């Protein structure tokens, strides 16, 4: 990249999604189109617990894990659900629409 201009994650991701992993966890997937971009993210540790915590406005301790999954050239992030699926106050039973903050990632 010239002049240090930042690129949008949308240029390199094939899939960005969220879903429950059981009623108490929310899991986010970023799958890359190209292995080179995946390797870049992995090498430079572009996705960290603090970055995710700040994107979602949560405490770092609520980010359970970040896993780089080779076979799918994908990054998986698991967060604590603020409210367990279906508990009064919940807004998304399946957790399928909690991915939008990831779309703002620049690198």
């Amino acid at each position, binding site marked *: 990249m010239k002049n240090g201009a930042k690129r949008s994650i949308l240029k390199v991701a094939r*899939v960005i999604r969220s*879903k*429950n*992993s*059981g*009623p*108490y*966890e929310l*899991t986010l*997937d970023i*799958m890359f189109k190209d292995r080179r971009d995946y390797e870049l993210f992995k090498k430079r540790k572009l996705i960290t617990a603090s970055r995710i915590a700040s*994107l*979602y*406005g*949560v405490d770092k301790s609520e980010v*359970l*894990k970040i*896993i780089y*999954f080779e*076979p*799918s050239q*994908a990054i*998986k992030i*698991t967060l*604590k*659900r*603020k*409210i*367990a*699926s*279906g*508990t*009064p*106050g*919940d*807004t*998304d*039973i*399946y957790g399928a*629409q*909690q991915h*939008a*903050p990831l779309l703002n990632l620049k690198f």
Partner: protein
Amino acid sequence: MEKRKKLPPFKILSTTAILGYGFPLSSFKKGLSKKPDLIAADAGSTDPGPYYLGSGKSFTNRTAVKRDLRLMIKAGVERHIPVVIGSAGGSGARPHLDWCLEIVREIAREEKLHFKLGIVQADVKKEAVLKALKEGKISPLPFVPPLTRKVIEDSENIVAQMGVEPFIKLLKAGAQVIVAGRSYDPAVFAALPISRGYDPGLALHLGKILECAAIAATPGSGSDCAFGTLEEDSFVLEALSPERKFTPQSAAAHTLYEKSDPYHLPGPGGSIDLTGCQFEDLGQGRVRVTGSKFVPSDGYWLKLEGVRLAGYRSISVAGVRDPVMIGKIDEILKAVEVKVRNILGKDSEGSRLYFHVYGKNGVMGELEPVKKTKSHELGIVIEVIGPTQTEADAVLALTRSVLLHYGYEGRIATAGNLAFPFSPSDVAMGKVYEFSIYHLMQVSDPAFFPVKTEKL
């Protein structure tokens, strides 16, 4: 050492991602023509939320489940292929199991089929959970509050996800069709091959993929069959309709779905370790998978699921188009709640009030990073959860009318603050459940689930 006979390929036909989601007849027939050793489907999930386990109702449609089951059972019984169904009725507690069994018996009568039906219950008595808690044999999953005596006592329909053991017991007893309560999804696929000596890591990993049927193919579908062939050192996946195929990427990607760690998939008695797993393209839409390992855990742990009644729900749906009101929506809603609570006093104490404000943060709630809405209209769902339906209805009715006529500062439209799309505006939704138990329990006998057989 005597040379062991090589195991023949073990072929599995998975019909659909969830029993009742359907499958094309053409795919099913193609699967049958490949002479499967097993026809199986998983019927369950906790995804639709806690209501279904609590209420004893299925989240799938009876007519659709009967259609899928009729095809599977008829084909299986006529061809002497075992048919195995797990997590009957969606949540797999006693009422769900009974619901599914009634459908199976109806099919047997209507089709004049005779077979040995195997039944496994997944319900766990409160006393057994209390005893395990006392003995330190309960362990919470991440972010789940610790289990207490009170929570166990308040919970309804506690089930445990069974592993392969109860299925093996029934298959050995000659059951031709098995209907089980809450099951670990891969168990219905892996039980028979594991009992015949196939590698449990490969069998369970294959089951993990087949439980979603063609979802792991590309283009994915939850309403189409998938076919798996298990061999001694690998398994092969293939789709059964010409419009989709398995690719190494589609099969690997599925491993990410709804899981927190794609390398280690925990289940009853241990986990599947995929760190050495390889996905190889065989061409013609087929993928070979190698290297999946089963790692037994220290002690045999089962996952418990239970829910408790949280109250009764009433809702009202309305829209707001007034820019002055939209600009002050947070303070208006706060003031409305205060007013309602002042009027009702003690009568509203047991009720919880939620405003779901679509166009602002209705979808993400607290997680929403956009704090100021740019929307020109908002959708509001007023939700009340009360200790009885009557109380919930009363708090909702008052909240709706107070919000409708609330005189906020700067108000210019004085005829009413809300646009209701429906008359009546209020809906009584009935019981609300919440997950209360989502913990691991250690057991000494993995096959402790009560099994029985029935001659049909």
